[in-house]
Every structure is written in C-alpha cells, then in structure tokens.
C-alpha cells in the first residue's frame, strides 16, 4: 500500500525534471545541427552570419512549445479517438462509471474519456497533469474486458496520470513526431535537389584546404541528421519500461485487486494483433505495446534497448504475486 505512494512526490518531481531536460536537449540538438552547419559553411569561406543555426534554434524552440501545448490533442488525433461525452451503449456507460470510480480511488479529477475505434484491446493516457488529462481506450478493450478487468486497466492509466508520467511521455511523443516530420521534410528537400549540405562543389574544395577536421565534422553533422529520429525513438523506449511496472503497482493500490489487471493483461496479450490505429510515435504511451514487437516478450539488452514495454509475462507474474500476498493476508485475518 505504501510502496508506490510513499515516493509519489519524488516520482512527480523526477518527471517534471526529465521533461525539462528533454525539452532542453531537443533544443540543444537542433542548435548543434544548425550552428554545426554554419561552422562548416564558414570554414568554406561562405556567409559570415550563422543564419542556419539561428533559424533552426528558433524553429526548435517554437516547435517544442507547440509540441508541448498541443501534444495531447495531437496524440489523440493521430489515433482517431473521439471523445465520449454522451454515452449511448451500456459498455460506454460502464466505462464512464469505472473511470469515475477509479478517479475517486486515485484522488484525482476525472480525466476526459476518449474511445479509439479499433478492435484490438489497448489503452493509453495523455495530458500534462491530473487537471488536464485524457484517457483513451479502444473499442476492443471494452468488448474484451469484464468490469473488474476494465477497472484494473483504467487504474493503471490513472497511475500514469497521477505520477505525471503522462507529461513526460506526451511531450516525448510530440517530439518524436516533430523529428520524424523534419526528417521526412529534409529527405524530400535533398531529393528535390536543393544542395543544403554543399555536396558536389564543396566536396572538392574541402579536400584542398579543410583537412581531416572538416571531413570529420561534416561526417558527424550528417550522421546527427540521420540518427536524430533514432535517438528520439531510443529515448521513448528507455523512458517507458520501468514506468509500466510502477503503474501496475499503482493500479493494484487503487483497485486492491491486482489479479483483475493480471487477467486483463493476459487477455490483451492473447489478442496480440497489432493496434493499427496507434502509430509508432505514441507506442510508449499504451498499456501494451501496440506494435506487437517481439522484443517486448523477452528480457536482455536487446529488449532493454528496443522495447517500449517490459515482458508481459513478467508484469503478469508480478501482479499475481501481489494478489497471492493479498489473499494470504486476508485469509489470515478471517481464520
């Protein structure tokens, strides 16, 4: 009972801090891309003022602000979710009730509820903090889960909301999206024949007066451009794995029923079809890896690097362990 809640404050603090660092790192990275390019250009004796650096840095700052502000909407929009305001079916009424109940148990305001029209069971939460939170579930989840199991899943998501995981993860999702967008744009520009990197002519001159330093810098700079999306992806992977265990534990704390979440996870695992409406950029937000990647089912360094989620079997066995301990305690009380 005390384990997840005891360090809630530290968790929130850590998430605030990491979000700040993420944003700073993002801007610095773009500044490097820009000013690095200017430096290379200057070495070739071109323009004196670092236009590229200034422009890219400003773009990055504006982009980050925009990504942070609109992150939740963008994530929801990308999944095609629609908000559930006026429930029509019994399942929708039940969903609203369950979210209400779990918000009470977690002691947070009720988040806005969204439904993703997808038959694969999955759920995610997004937003900046508990007063501005969104919780989305797929139609498949509503169909598949019993009331108790739904409670477990919703409580897991509210755990992410309460300890501010959503802030970090949503910002990251928005930045991953931004980087992918920039990468695609750059690719199109280069293919379109605009010689940003001074390809042909610069190459010969560099051979004469730039020396190896320039070549190394140029290589480093180009590599940075290429690996930018990969780095943000790796960040997304690293950021989310440990959080899933913690959110599972918080769910158990809110519902006092870890076995229900375990059985929900088993069902979700069994229906392992990829959740097609959830794109790569938002995968780390979900309760189960929507891409159905094979890394997710394993342990080891490869999985540690590339999986957004811990192995489902580990999560289930941990939850069952909690449930067993609880049963034993309750049994001891009545006897």
């Amino acid at each position: 009972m005390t384990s997840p809640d005891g360090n809630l404050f530290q968790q929130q603090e850590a998430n605030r801090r990491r979000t700040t660092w993420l944003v700073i790192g993002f801007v610095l990275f773009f500044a490097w891309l820009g000013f690095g390019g200017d430096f290379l250009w200057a070495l070739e004796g071109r323009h004196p003022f670092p236009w590229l650096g200034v422009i890219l840095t400003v773009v990055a700052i504006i982009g980050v602000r925009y990504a942070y502000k609109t992150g939740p909407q963008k994530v929801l929009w990308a999944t095609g979710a629609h908000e559930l305001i006026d429930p029509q079916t019994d399942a929708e009424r039940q969903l609203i009730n369950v979210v209400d109940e779990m918000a009470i148990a977690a002691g947070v305001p009720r988040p806005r509820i969204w439904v993703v029209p997808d038959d694969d069971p999955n759920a995610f939460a997004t937003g900046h903090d508990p007063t501005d939170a969104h919780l989305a579930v797929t139609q498949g989840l509503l169909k598949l889960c019993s009331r108790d199991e739904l409670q477990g899943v919703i409580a897991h998501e509210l755990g992410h909301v309460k300890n501010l995981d959503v802030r970090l993860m949503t910002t990251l999702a928005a930045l991953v999206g931004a980087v992918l967008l920039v990468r695609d744009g750059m690719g199109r520009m280069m293919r379109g024949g605009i010689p940003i990197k001074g390809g042909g002519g610069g190459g010969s001159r560099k051979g004469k007066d730039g020396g190896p330093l320039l070549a190394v810098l140029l290589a480093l700079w180009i590599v940075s451009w290429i690996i930018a999306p990969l780095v943000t992806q790796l960040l997304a992977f690293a950021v989310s794995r440990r959080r899933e265990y913690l959110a599972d534990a918080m769910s158990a704390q809110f519902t006092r029923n870890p076995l229900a979440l375990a059985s929900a996870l088993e069902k979700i695992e069994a229906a392992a079809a990829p959740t097609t409406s959830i794109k790569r950029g938002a995968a780390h937000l979900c309760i189960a890896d929507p891409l159905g990647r094979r890394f997710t089912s394993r342990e080891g360094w490869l999985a540690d690097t590339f999986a957004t989620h811990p192995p489902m079997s580990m999560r289930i066995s941990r939850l069952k362990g909690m449930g067993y301990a609880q049963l034993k305690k309750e049994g001891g009380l009545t006897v």
Partner: protein
Amino acid sequence: MWLLLIVVVIAGLWMVGAYNGLISLKNQTVNAFKQIDVQLKRRHDLIPNLVNAVKGAMNFERSTLEAVVQARNQAVKVNASGPEAMKQISQAENALSGALTRLLAVVERYPDLKATGNIGQLQEELTSTENRIAFARQLYNDTATQYNTKQQQFPTTLVAGIANAAPADLWEIEEQAERAVPQVDLSGR
C-alpha cells in the same frame, strides 16, 4: 559558536519541512473525508429514482425495496456532529449499503428481471454507486493512515503538537449485517 548556529538553522529548516508536511497531509485527510460525504450525498439523491425505476418490475420483492428506502431515509436523517458523528454516519450508511447489496443480490437471482427494461442499467448504477463510496473510503483510510503514521513516527512526532495534529479516525465496517451479505448471494443459487 558557528557550529551551534548551523545546527540551530538546520533544525529550524527541518522543523519547517516537517510541519508543512504534516499540515499538507492533514488537509489531504480532511479533503478525502469530504469526498466520502460527496459520494454519500450522491447515493442519497440517486436512490429514490432507482427505486421508482424498478418498482413496477419488482412486485414480488417489496420488502427488499422497502428496506432500501427506509435505510436511505435513516441515513439522510443523521445530522450529528462532534466525535460521535463519524460513528453514527458510518452506522447508518453501512445499513444502507447492506440493504442495497441485498437488492443487488435479488436482482442477480432473477435473470428474467435483468433482461427487462432498464434493470441492467440499474444494476450498473448500483454497483458503481457502491464502488464510488468504497473507493472514497479507501482513499480516506489510506490518507488518514499516512497522516497518523507520520505524526506518530519519530522525529516528526516532535512537531505534531505544534501542527495541532491528532490521529484521524479510520472508517471501518463494523456492521455484522454487511459482512454477512455474501452469504445471501450464495444461498440464493
């Protein structure tokens, strides 16, 4: 001399931190208690509608329905304050919970009833109402336990007096009837 000053400053800073921590927990506890009230009020307002909705379909279980209405009216009437308030409120509300759980068990026993009209919805509403209250109590008990533990633990206990911290009562299920409810459900099948 300097050493003494440093020690005093550190002790002072620690006291401010511990004091503020206790006050924060105290307010959380008060707030969590208010949340229980909100949910109880919600249940009181809901029950007349619910009973009206099933009256027609449930001619044969009159007594169960009447027990619910009676327990509800009892619970609304409780208007105590002071140290006895919590005990009285919790007794009345536990009686109401027991009556509602019996109603749920009855609905559960007649599958035909579940199929007719809005009984299915009624069942969902009842379940949710009871869950809300249970979870509000759970949050209150968790927060109060944290608060109680903090003010009793050394060294925070040293500032507990300054912060006017007193142990908060936990919300307990004492009613025998409520504990026995699951048996009703079992024998019904």
